[in-house]
């Protein structure tokens, strides 16, 4: 495993993603998903919205970094706002 060059932050990053996936799987078992059509005019389930959130967050972080909007941790706040919006309206 040495060649994979693990670091604590990246390990935490992947653990968070794994935890999210597990949480959503459990949620899907407990409360079965029903697709709905949101502002994007496409059918989405809870899992789809998670994917849209994660992918969007990655781009928000990159834009934040590229345009030097501010200190990087604040980008996560923007992501949270974005996530809330996605789960509410998409």
């Amino acid at each position, binding site marked *: 495993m*040495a*060649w994979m060059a693990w670091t604590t932050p990246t390990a935490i990053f992947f653990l968070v993603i794994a935890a999210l996936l597990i949480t959503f799987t459990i949620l899907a078992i407990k409360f079965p998903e029903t697709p709905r059509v949101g502002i994007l005019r496409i059918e989405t389930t809870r899992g789809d919205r998670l994917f849209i959130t994660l992918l969007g967050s990655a781009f928000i972080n990159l834009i934040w970094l590229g345009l030097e909007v501010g200190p990087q941790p604040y980008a996560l706040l923007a992501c949270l706002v974005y996530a809330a919006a996605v789960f509410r309206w998409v």
Partner: protein
Amino acid sequence: MTDTSIQAPGAGSIPGRVTEAKVNTARRKTPRINGSAVVMGLYLLFLLLPIYWLLNMSLKTNTEILGSFSLWPRDLTLANYVKILTDESWYIGYVNSLIYVVMNTVISLAVALPAAYAFSRYSFMGDKHLFFWLLTNRMAPPAVFALPFFQLYSSIGLFDTHIAVALAHCLFNVPLAVWILEGFMRGVPKEIDETAYLDGYSFPRFFIKIFTPLIASGIGVAAFFCFMFSWVELLLSRTLTTVDAKPIAAIMTRTQGAAGIDWGVLAAAGVLTIVPGALVIYFVRNYIAKGFALGRV
């Protein structure tokens, strides 16, 4: 659901059916036929001319290639081919390539068949996401994976082996095989499965005895695509090999020696890489058109 099975081209035209010419005249008057022929003729000429040129070069000596310009070999020679087919360091490349391509095709089909069946018949937790995730791997650029693969296979001691290349090519071939097979399996009515189970078939026996023959053409098409993409790929196979499993495509680069490029041998090696592909096409020619639709028309 549109039934595509009767539309397979070359599956023999049904007697008494309107023939090609009649359909064409039905759509437009006579000049149309000639127009199509001209278009196809030009297009095929465009496709074949560069290949002809390669063949032409491979049959010339280097002095002729560099000395004079001719549309066909004046001084026909097979020396370039003889060199490749007798020199082990050359022909071993073809053997290496074929070994990992066949390995890859077998592995891809073996794992893709049950998975495609599951996707085409059942809905289960996360099936759509899983399917999408598989497809993204087909779309992922090999360049992104070249370096980590190099590190991965070095660390587990598989570097420079055929199986390493075969496994690496699974990255894009397994998703593709699942995608194609799923399309073909969707066309098989579910009632067949149910009847077989009622008749007391177990799942493995049903799958091998009844289901596999029904989607034989789909399996052929999937195998064709796995073969094709594994055979043509260079970046990963070159990165993961040095000596023992070096593919022909990588060996070809060594014609660039100190004395310039050995054009004749390079062209001959190129022509020989086209041969396996041409053979495969010939065997699956009746399924090509449907195959390219990936069972999804």
